[in-house]
Every structure is written in C-alpha cells, then in structure tokens.
C-alpha cells in the first residue's frame, strides 16, 4: 500500500486505536490513558500536517474499496477535507489536554476518553470521506459516539438532553439517509468532486434533484443547528465543558455545516445549485437563523446556554457564506468553519474554567472574575470580541470576506444581516465582558478551588490561551500563506477555476 493511501487510513486509525486501547485500559490507570490520548493526538496532528502539505503540493491521497454492491468506501484528502481535518486535529489536541484537567477526579474517565477518541475518529472520517456514503457512515458514527459524552454526568437533566440530542440527530440521520439513497438510486455512487456532478443534467431530473437537495440539507441542518432544527443544541450544554467544546467547535455542529458545504459544492455543484435557485432559500434560512440565534442568546442567563445560542447563530454564517454565489462568499463561509471553531472553543474552555475554578455557571455570577482569573478572562474577552467581528481578530476576517462576498453576489441584504448580527453579538457578549472587568465581586464564588500559582489547574489554564493566540494570529496574519484564509482561497480557486 502506498503512502498516499496509507496516510488517510492512519489519520483515522490513530484515534480509533486510541479509543480501543483506552477502552481496554482499567479505569484506574490515569497516567497511561493520558499518555495514550496525547500521543494519539500528536500523532494525528503530524499525519494531518503531512497530508496538508501534500495536498498543497497537489498530491492525491485516496483509498477506496467496495463495501456493498455499487457502493464504495472512499477516503480522499482534497483541500476542503484538509481544512476540516486540520481544524479537528489541532483542536482535538487542545481539547484532550483540557479534558484531562477537567475530568480530574471524576468517575467513568475510561468511558469518557474512549468515546472521546471515537468521536474524533468519526470527525476525521467525515473530513476525509470521499463520497456521500462514506460521509454518512462517519456522520452516524459521530452521533452514536457523542451520545455517551452528552449524558456523561448521568444526571436526569443530562439524560434528558441526551434523549433530545439523539431524537434530533437520528431523525436528521434518517432524512439524510433517505436523500442519499434516493440520490444513489438516481445517479449511482457520486464521489465528491470540486465542480459537482449535475452540470448539464437532464432537465427532467431537476424536480427530483431539488427534493433530494432539500432532504440532504434538512438532514444535515439538524447537526448544523439550523432553525428550526436547532432544539437539541442549547440543551446539550449540560455536558461537561470539553464535550461542549467538541460539540460546538470541533465535531458535531461542524460536521453538519461541512456536510452542507460538501453537498452544495461537491455533489450538486455551486453552478447548478445556483441556477436551480436552490441557494437563495437556504441563504434566507441561514440569515434567519443567524438573527434568531443571536436574539435568543440575549435572554440566556446560563453562560453555556448563551454560548450555545451563539453557536446556532455563528454556524449559519458558514452556510450563508456557501450559499453566496461567488468565490468570495465561498472563502468567507469556509474560513468561518475554522474561525468559528477556534473562537467558540476558546469561549467554552473559558466557561469551563469559570465553572471548574469558581463554580460559576451563570452570567450574573461572573462579576469581577477578571481580577481573580485574568488569563481566562483575557481569552474570553478576545474570543467574544472576535465573535463580534472586531478586527484584527478571526471573526473580522470572516465578516469582511462574507460581506464582500455578499456584495459581489449582489445580495446586499446579507450584509445587513451580518451587521445586525454583529450588533446583537455585541449586545450579548459585551455585558459579560463588562461584568468580568468592570464590576466588583458581588458575592463569594459559589464553589472556589485553588491550584497553586496559576489561577486554575494547569491543564485548564493553557488551552484557552493557545486558542486565543490562534484566533488573534489567524486574523492578524490572514494573508500569509499558512493562514486558514489562504487555504480557503486555495479551495475556492480549485473550485471556481477547475
């Protein structure tokens, strides 16, 4: 087996094997488990880095075999795949580090980290999937492997959230499956291709294709938290903070959004979708979701719940971006896939830090936390400002590119949505920032814990700072060749100028 076929498989196996090893380890061997976790994460990062370099140079990494008659299991690393794979590889490492600290002294760690690794393996599979079938395979695997993480605490509330999660996502899965099967019956096994498949297709099929498109988007929209399919997301925030980070930034929500990107670009083809008028309704829906999530976030008192509604809003930026016909919109949507991940994971890390260190879960308990936990609060502030779109942070680059894309596509209303959403973002993030820095401590912290010299456990301390640094750098150095923006441009170029 050549290296080009081996690497995608290794990228998957690195966390799959980690999962198996972790499941096999006894509950009590914490050190070894941590070691395995970190080794796997670093290894995966190295593999993904190597592949990214290869893809940049034009190497074609792919492997496939027939799984069912007429259906292939296919892994293929194109530029888009590496965008998502890179995101999840980098953030997985950080989330693992964070989770090790977060779950210190809690039960069921073996189960947690096992499923955690499975979850990331699924995400990697989603990223590298070469056709819809393979995508679906990992998409459902992700659903299943996140359920134990959502209900990890085992409380009534967590189980309720888990139930909702599973109802929504399995329901979405069914709709998605229907769409995929139908498409397969119609057109056979379609590999993802930069230009799509339906250019110049027989016009008599247009009706069916439109229906299939609706099915696929609806199925994927559940995970992407699109209105009105978002109901599971705010509830799922009862999960431990690293899981929320994973759900919102790395895996689940992103898988949905990524799927939508794949369907629009690599199955239907942006040209075809545009000409069939499939994009505009989706753009409106995304726009509505953007505003809806923000408005709902305003009234949330629970910090993580507020962040969850913010995710609903932010992920639809990605969808809005991909529905804007034109390279700039594409770049904006794709780059937000990464940027939103980095910013949101920072926010969730920080929320977790407040919860673990001070026992603070509500926004109104955060008064004066900036003085007690400056590093965490700085990270939170930076990420919040990034979400609002303050330059030069990550969010600004997205907003600018999306806005320019919307204008280029003659969709001026989308710019209005972006601006309105920025204002709303400011309205629900800035009060938190204000409480952190400008209000005096109102009451003793609900449940304070101390760890030596640092403001919190070292495992919890560093990850948000690293992601904060990233969200500054990806914005500040956006035009450089190593930035997500450049990578998104590379994808757009390959898509629009095949």
């Amino acid at each position, binding site marked *: 087996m050549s290296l080009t076929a081996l690497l995608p498989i290794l990228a998957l196996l690195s966390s799959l094997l980690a999962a198996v090893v972790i499941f096999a380890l006894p509950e009590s061997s914490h050190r070894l488990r941590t070691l395995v976790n970190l080794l796997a994460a670093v290894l995966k990062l190295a593999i993904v880095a190597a592949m990214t370099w290869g893809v940049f140079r034009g190497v074609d990494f792919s492997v496939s075999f027939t*799984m069912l008659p007429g259906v292939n299991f296919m892994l293929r690393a194109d530029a888009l795949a590496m965008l998502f794979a890179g995101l999840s590889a980098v953030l997985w490492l950080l989330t693992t580090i964070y989770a090790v600290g977060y779950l210190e002294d809690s039960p069921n760690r073996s189960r947690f980290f096992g499923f955690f690794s499975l979850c990331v393996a699924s995400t990697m599979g989603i990223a590298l999937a070469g056709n819809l079938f393979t995508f679906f395979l990992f998409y459902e695997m992700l*659903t299943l492997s996140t359920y*134990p993480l959502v209900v990890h605490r085992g*409380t009534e509330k967590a189980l309720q959230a888990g139930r909702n999660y599973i109802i929504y996502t399995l329901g979405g*899965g069914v709709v998605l499956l*229907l769409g995929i*099967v139908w498409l*397969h019956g119609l057109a056979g096994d379609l590999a993802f291709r930069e230009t799509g498949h339906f250019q110049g297709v027989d016009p008599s099929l247009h009706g069916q294709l439109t229906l299939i498109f609706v099915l696929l988007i609806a199925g994927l929209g559940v995970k992407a938290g699109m209105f009105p399919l978002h109901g599971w997301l705010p509830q799922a925030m009862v999960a431990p903070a690293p899981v929320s980070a994973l759900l919102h930034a790395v895996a689940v929500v992103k898988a949905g959004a990524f799927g939508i990107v794949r369907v629009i670009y690599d199955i239907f083809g942006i040209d075809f979708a545009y000409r069939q008028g499939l994009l505009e309704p989706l753009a409106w829906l995304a726009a509505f979701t953007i505003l809806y999530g923000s408005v709902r976030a305003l009234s949330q008192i629970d910090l993580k719940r507020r962040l969850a509604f913010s995710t609903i809003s932010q992920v639809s930026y990605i969808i809005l971006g991909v529905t804007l016909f034109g390279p700039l919109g594409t770049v904006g949507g794709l780059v937000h896939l990464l940027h939103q991940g980095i910013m949101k994971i920072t926010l969730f890390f920080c929320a977790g830090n407040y919860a673990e260190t001070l026992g603070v879960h509500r926004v109104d308990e955060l008064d004066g936390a900036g003085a007690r936990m400056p590093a965490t609060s700085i990270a939170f502030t930076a990420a919040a400002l990034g979400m609002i779109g303050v330059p030069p942070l990550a969010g600004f680059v997205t907003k600018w590119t999306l806005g320019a894309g919307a204008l280029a596509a003659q969709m001026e209303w989308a710019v209005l949505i972006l601006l309105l959403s920025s204002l709303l973002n400011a309205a629900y993030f800035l009060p938190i920032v204000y409480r952190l820095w400008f209000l005096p401590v109102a009451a003793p912290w609900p449940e304070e814990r101390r760890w030596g010299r640092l403001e919190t456990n070292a495992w919890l301390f560093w990850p948000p700072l690293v992601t904060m640094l990233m969200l500054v750098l990806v914005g500040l150095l956006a035009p450089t060749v190593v930035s997500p923006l450049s990578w998104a441009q590379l994808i757009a170029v390959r898509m629009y100028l095949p």
Partner: protein
Amino acid sequence: MAGLLFTPLAWAALSLLLDFRRGRWLSWLGMLIQVLVSLSLWFAVATGGGFFYALAGWQAPLGIALRVDGLAVSFVLLTAAVATACGVHAGVYLDPSKSWQRYFWPLFWFLWAGLNGVWLGADLFNLYVGLELISLAAVGLVALGGEAAALRAALRYLFAALLGSLAYLLGVALLYGQFGTLSLTGIADVVGAAEPAAALALLLMLAGLALKTALFPLHGWLPPAHGIAKSPVSALLSGLVVKASFYIAARLWLELGDRLGSQLLAQGLGALGAAAVLWGSWRAFRQPYLKQVVAYSSVAQIGYLFLLFPLTYAVAEPVSRLAQQGITLQVISHALAKAAMFLAAGNLILSVRSKRVDALGGVSHFLPFSLFSFGLAGVSLMGMPPTGGFAAKWLLLQASLASGQWWWIAVLLLGGVLAAAYVFRIYRASFLEDSASDDFYHPPKTLEAIPMILALLALGLGLVAEPVLSVLALPFEVAAGVTVVQP
C-alpha cells in the same frame, strides 16, 4: 460434508449419556470440530463454487439430497459461529446444580443438526424433518428454564410449532400429490402458472412457516418463549431458530413465487412484515423487562425479512437480487446482533440481579463491557452504519426505490428510528448515575467476551459486506446450474 449433519446428532446422543459438566467438555470439543469443518466447507465453496451432493450416492427423489451453495454454507458457518458462542456461554452461564440442565447439551446438538439440515436440504420433506427437529429441540430448551412460566411458554411454543408444521406438511403433501416429487428444483422445473392446487399448497406452507417465524400477527408465542428462556437459549432461538423457517419460506418463494404467487400475496406478506416492524418495536419500547425488550425487538426485526416477498415479486432481476442480498444480510446480521444482545442482556441481568429495565441504573459504571456489547448490537439493529444491519437496510432501500415501492422506504426508516427508541431507552436507564444500589455482581470474563465478539462480527459484517455477498451470491447463479458432484 455429511459430518455437518450427522456429527451433531452423534454429539447429541453421546451427551445424553453424560451429566451437564462432562457434557460441557464434550460439547466444547464438538463445537471446535464443527466450526473447523464449517469454515473449511465455506472456503471450499467460496473458491470452488456450489454443488449438489447426494448422500451415500442416492439421488434426489429417494435419498437425502444436499444443496451445497454459497448461501447454505454461509448459513452453516453462521450457525456454527452463533451456536458455538451460545454453547460456550451456556457452559458458563447455566447452573450445573439443577438436575434438568443435563438435557441442555443433547437438545443443543439436536437443534444444531436440525439447523444444518434445513440450510442444506434440497427437498421439501427433508426440510420438514429438519424443521421438526428444530422445533422440538427448541421447545425443550425453553422448558429448561425450569419455572412454571417457562413450561407454560414452552407449551404455547409447542402448539404454535406443531400447528405451523401441520400446515406446512399439508402443503408438501399437496405438492407431492400433484407433481410426484419433493425436490424443490424438480417442482420448480415443472410447475406452471395458474395451478390453483399448487398455489394453495404454497399458501399453506407459507402460512405455516410464517407462524413458526412469528410473523405479526402470529407472533404471540415468541416473546414469552424467548423472554423466559435462559439467555443463551434465547440467543439461539432468536438468532437462528426463527431464521430456519423463514429460510424455507424464502426458498419456496424464490423458486415458485413467480408463478404461484400473486401481487396481493406478496404485498400482503410485506404489509404484515411492516406491521410487525412497527408493532414489535413499539411493544419493545414499552416492555418493563429487559429480555422482553429484546424479544419484541426480534418480532420487529423478523418483520423486515418479509419485505423479501414484495421486493422480489414481479420486479426486474437486478432489483430482486438487491432485495435478496439485503434480506440475507439482514438474516446474518440480526442473528449475530440479536445473539449478542441476548447474551449481553443475560450478563446485565446477572449483574444487577433484576430483570427490570429501570434496575439498570449505574450499570454503565460497573459493567461497561457488556453494556458496550449490548450497545454495539443495538447499533446493528437500528441499522446504523457501518454495521451489517445498515448494509442490509441500504440494499433494501435501494431495492424499494428501484422497484418503485416507496412505501417500504417509510417502513425501513421508521423501523430504524423505533429501534433506536428502544435501544436508547436501555442506554438511558444504564447511564443514570443516581441509583441507590451499588451492589453489582461481576460475571466471569468469558461471559463478557462472547457477546462482544458477536457484536463485533455484526459490526464488521457491514464493512466486508461486498465479499460476503459475493459468496452468498453463488446460489442464485449456480442453483440452476448443473455442477453436480458425485462423491
């Protein structure tokens, strides 16, 4: 070859002479041999193709003719795998101190012999004999549960089985009277369309087999029998026994259905199957006892099998092939997954010392391995990728779509959702952390390992579905061929 049929009988006879413990050693040895033989046969067919085999050189009408094709050997292998797993599990699980347990091994082996007889049988009467052997052994195994309720369930089972056999036998008699042969291919060669007597015979046989397979609404006997039996027995019954009668029904249909069947019959059977899927799943969701959940899940999963009838009747050849492949995968994956599930359920029950679902709180903490096996098996039942259940569902969906019978799509998808509902109900119960009791029993490692292996097999089936199907595909190519090998 013949060993596959007769050695189980020999083991049965031998073990009859021994008590449970010694019978166990003997049986474990026997299983090893059976597995090896089954494997080598499978490889032989996979590489060399299928063939007919006349026992002792006597040809079909008189002697026992065996039809050794890809499908049959695959089922033989499946039987070997599941039965061995259940046998090993039973050896550890069952309580040797109960005197009646010594009958377990003989019944177990009779069952195995009957199963192999059905898979390999080429004529209707031999199939009947195999079927009876299976039924009687299965009833006996259920009765081994020992309690009064078990006996009641066994009796009920027995009546159902006898009634089913009777109907089947009547059909066989009718066919024999008309065509003078019992060979399935023989009949298929001569039968023409619009022969009411033959059609009646087919109807009778299908009805009898449907009863034995526990097709809705004839499923009433199954949940009590499967629920009350000891876990390894339940696993055998749900995994293999009900499949035997379905296998015969499917063979009949594929050979004769195109001429003797009707669209009404096909759709009707499919509708019953659909009803079984929905009703069984719903009932499973409502059951308070863990094993009842699993048993009703069997009712639902069997329902899928009956989609074979509408999806192969009056459709294009490729569509029919898709449906057949899908159903075959469903049989195999359900056998593996359901066996795994019953065995894992047995472990969970042992561990929490209660049969109730709501007693499972906290078990994820103490028995993660068994719960994980249960979960993996559940994943296959739900038809989630990448399991065998998913592969089967995919093929059936394709077949429904291609044949234009879109209503089965709804059934398939809804069935998956309902399966998820009852499986996740179990997860939910076991993830609950605030359970008051933390008094758990840890079953031996063997008991935990076996369901895991089965569940992994069900999972892996999806990944290697293509090669497996290519072996399975042999019958439908070769059956009509003339590769008759004389010994």
